[in-house]
């Protein structure tokens, strides 16, 4: 008769970036069941955002550090939906360029992190070396490496000059062959395939019941992308793309979806730069918003939704943030049982848990 031993995969662990607690029940190196516990990073953001709606343009960016521009843009889109503002076209295109730049930095970080969990440190260093050039580009355009702070309800606050646009295009031409070399490694390298293929499978029916979003859903056969529903400049003429999706549902499929989306983002930035026309940057707005509204956007990890109720003064009534990592982490209770113990970090990191977003 074999015994079951319990191992805590605790809040502090070398393979996680953020605190998340798993209690694994093992039977001789195979996982039998798992219990999740979260809440180590709770800061009370939804309550703090009720104090002042103008300050929230900066506070909503600081909910997450890696998808910060998406949070800021979705907050501004919700206030614009409540107040009925029409954002000028140049602001929409600038927002789209910065959103895609943040997506590239986020996906390269996740892929490097999966490589580190697998044990392939050389690939981890190469991903971070390419990522550094994109962080310098973001510093050139917006002034900061991580929190861009370019949004204001009604438009954007900083402009892209023609010299900056030229330098952005040259840098993209220089970086594309390097990203394609890394794409070849992720697709075909035999060590990588042995550690990630067939591990942590999530079928299409399981993905639908657990309401999974983002690259995790697109790797399991659900081709849905929120960018197609029309916001932040993706609906303008001249910007075309198709969602990237696969059917296998294992860790390799999730990594491949992210790698393909990185190359697609480079192409999207080029299309946007071709569409830049002159025009105003911000739509003026006086007074305070009044009413209810919601807005969605595609963060690197999935679909992000903000729901706000405002009552016509500088305080808001209720702010609800539904982040993608909140919905993507619970299916771990179905993916982990049946796998071996050394595969646990690889599966948890391939789902891309952003615990700051989950706990707010």
């Amino acid at each position, binding site marked *: 008769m074999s015994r079951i031993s319990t191992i805590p995969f605790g809040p502090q662990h070398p393979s996680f970036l953020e605190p998340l607690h798993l209690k694994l029940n093992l039977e001789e190196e195979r996982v039998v069941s798992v219990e999740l516990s979260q809440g180590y990073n709770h800061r009370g953001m939804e309550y703090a955002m009720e104090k002042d709606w*103008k300050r929230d343009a900066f506070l909503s960016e600081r909910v997450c550090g890696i998808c910060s521009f998406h949070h800021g843009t979705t907050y501004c889109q919700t206030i614009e939906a409540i107040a009925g503002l029409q954002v000028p076209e140049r602001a929409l295109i600038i927002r789209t360029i910065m959103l895609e730049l943040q997506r590239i930095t986020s996906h390269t970080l996740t892929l490097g992190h999966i490589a580190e969990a697998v044990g392939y440190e050389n690939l981890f260093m190469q991903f971070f070396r390419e990522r550094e050039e994109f962080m310098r580009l973001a510093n050139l355009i917006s002034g*900061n490496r991580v929190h861009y702070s370019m949004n204001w309800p009604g438009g954007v606050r900083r402009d892209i000059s023609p010299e900056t646009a030229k330098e952005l295009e040259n840098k993209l031409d220089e970086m594309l062959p390097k990203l394609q*070399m890394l794409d070849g490694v992720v697709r075909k390298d035999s060590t990588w395939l042995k550690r990630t293929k067939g591990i942590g499978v999530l079928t299409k029916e399981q993905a639908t019941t657990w309401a999974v979003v983002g690259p995790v859903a697109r790797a399991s056969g659900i081709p849905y992308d929120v960018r197609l529903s029309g916001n932040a400049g993706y609906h303008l003429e001249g910007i075309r793309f198709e969602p990237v999706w696969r059917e296998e549902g294992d860790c390799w499929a999730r990594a491949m979806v992210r790698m393909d989306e990185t190359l697609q983002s480079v192409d999207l930035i080029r299309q946007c730069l071709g569409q830049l026309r002159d025009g105003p940057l911000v739509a003026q707005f006086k007074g305070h918003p009044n009413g209810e509204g919601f807005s969605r956007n595609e963060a690197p990890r999935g679909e992000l939704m903000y729901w706000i109720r405002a009552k016509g003064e500088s305080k808001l009534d209720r702010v609800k943030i539904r982040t993608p990592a909140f919905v993507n982490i619970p299916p771990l209770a179905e993916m982990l049982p049946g796998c071996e113990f050394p595969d646990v970090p690889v599966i948890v990191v391939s789902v891309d848990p952003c615990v700051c977003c989950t706990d707010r």
Partner: protein
Amino acid sequence: MLRSTFKNLFSHPNTKRYPSVPADLPQGNRGRVEWDMKKCIWCMLCQKNCPTGAIKTDKAGKTQSVVRNRCITCGRCVEVCPTQTIFMRQQYSKPAMEPEIHIYGAEMMQWEYRVENLPILNHKKKV
């Protein structure tokens, strides 16, 4: 992968030896905020629009003070000021041993400031 590994063995490292080599900060980098006190008209718009409450204007004593730890270099005060008194530099603030307040006064020279520390708040003991 093997080819790029061998190429990396014989090339320069990608990192720089900061701080002996100066950091390559681009134009328009968000550094720290400074006041030119000759142009200030005491409208107090910078204090009202600061998201973190870092700026405090003293109209009677003719000083502007900023708590450096609370400033997030967002640039709202630079946008809102009607006479372009506030200027954002490229260099960052230097680290210090304790939280600092920088006070700009009307009688001082241009861009000069005085340094004070944050007062220690007394927490009332619960009875």
